[in-house]
């Protein structure tokens, strides 16, 4: 889809800068079809529909040709934006750029001596067994057994898994998915790390342990997305 080229008189090609910009950028045509999107936008489309973003662009488009930046709080799963710029120079194309809200930098240092090479599937399975000794809810697990081992504080992470599952103790049907997030990375201690995503969802859940879940997740450098019916943990694969 990366087809557009920006050429000035000096034939400077800006496209690769745009491609690799961490802020999502999308160019739609008048019918809402995507003419261009950068890599960050490609990932964003994993969490929000094309129509929703096109409608957003139209809603915040300037009254006349040109560009307007609006400050607003947008949240799509783990993505949080604090502003968007919408612009159009003709009737055929409209662009939208999202400004990433700065992530709260974790002040928790990585205690390498506490990190142990771990098979996450093993810990997850053990926690499911523990959950089943106390609850009889129907539980469905979809996992990727090829997730490589990585280093983690096994005790803390187990507690996080226990708390996460316990918040679904009265749910009717629980779906657990563990997978690698293709193409997504997180920077931990200055290094790029792949991410495994654990998603637990049901028809509802308890929120009494949410603060604890957030706290333990933060200590494990895990991004948490806690919603009414789901909990998503994005786990950096520290090697």
């Amino acid at each position: 889809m990366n087809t557009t080229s920006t050429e000035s008189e000096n034939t400077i090609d800006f496209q690769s800068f745009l491609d690799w910009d961490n802020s999502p950028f999308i160019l739609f045509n008048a019918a809402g079809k995507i003419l261009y999107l950068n890599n960050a936008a490609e990932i964003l489309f994993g969490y929000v529909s094309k129509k929703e973003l096109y409608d957003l662009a139209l809603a915040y488009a300037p009254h006349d040709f040109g560009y307007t930046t609006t400050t607003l709080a947008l949240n799509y799963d783990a993505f949080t934006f604090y502003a968007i710029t919408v612009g159009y120079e003709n009737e055929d194309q409209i662009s939208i750029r999202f400004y990433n809200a700065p992530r709260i930098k974790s002040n928790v240092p990585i205690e390498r001596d506490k990190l142990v090479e771990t098979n996450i599937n093993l810990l997850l399975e053990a926690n499911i067994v523990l959950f089943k000794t106390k609850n009889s809810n129907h539980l469905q697990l979809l996992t990727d057994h090829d997730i490589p081992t990585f280093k983690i504080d096994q005790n803390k992470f187990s507690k996080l898994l226990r708390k996460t599952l316990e918040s679904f103790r009265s749910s009717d049907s629980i779906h657990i998915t563990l997978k690698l997030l293709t193409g997504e990375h997180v920077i931990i201690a200055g290094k790029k790390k792949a991410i495994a995503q654990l998603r637990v969802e049901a028809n509802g859940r308890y929120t009494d342990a949410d603060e604890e879940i957030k706290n333990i997740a933060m200590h494990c450098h895990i991004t948490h997305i806690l919603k009414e019916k789901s909990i998503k943990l994005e786990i950096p694969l520290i090697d």
Partner: protein
Amino acid sequence: MQQFFTKSEQVHNIIKGFNLTKTLFVSSIIIGEEHIGKKLFVKHLFPDAPVVSGEDQGAVVDALREYDELIITDFEKLRNQESLELDNKRIIATASYIGNQTIIDDMFAFIYTLPSLKERPEDVEYIKALFIKEAASDLMLTNTNFDITAIPVNLTQNTKSLKSTIYRYLMIHSMSKNEIQDAVYSYVSEKLEGNNGYKEHLALYEKPLIEAGLKKFGSQLQLSQILGINRNTLRKKIHEHHID
């Protein structure tokens, strides 16, 4: 070494959980009533792990410094539990109750509840048979041809009450006439005093005699004939000994 036995699905799930985390550095605790086999259970799962009791705070602190894998029994008896550093070790603790839920919740990744014997009826028959075998051997009974189903099952204190009931039953039911007389002799030697000793201790003989007779023969009429005493005398004695 005594093996831990169970047919309980819930306990098998706990074993499964432990088997999955056996190689990991996580802290686990098993909570359950007294005398349900918690120590036997963890020793069965971790036969090589050193064991230290929560009754000895100093020993626990020292053992935590020394070992990466450790069984701590009687965890509820430890003072200052929160000051212990369990992270990055394979800790298996047992406790009869949760003293402070927040502390336990914070310290342990895996918190299991081992069901009591009352909740594991499928295990009771096996454990009962095991205790009977053990008791017959300990008491050196020559005649082991007794009715197992007649032995009462007392689970008020789990294995403790089950075992003691079995031992008492077998002892009582295997005593010879001489041994019963010896037992009465021993009792009376200790208790006999005052000026009405005969009447006071007559119940030792008369009460079980009448109770057993009534159970065996059903009616007072028949029992009076068997005992060779007057029916009114029997009725009077039933009243005296408060027999229903």
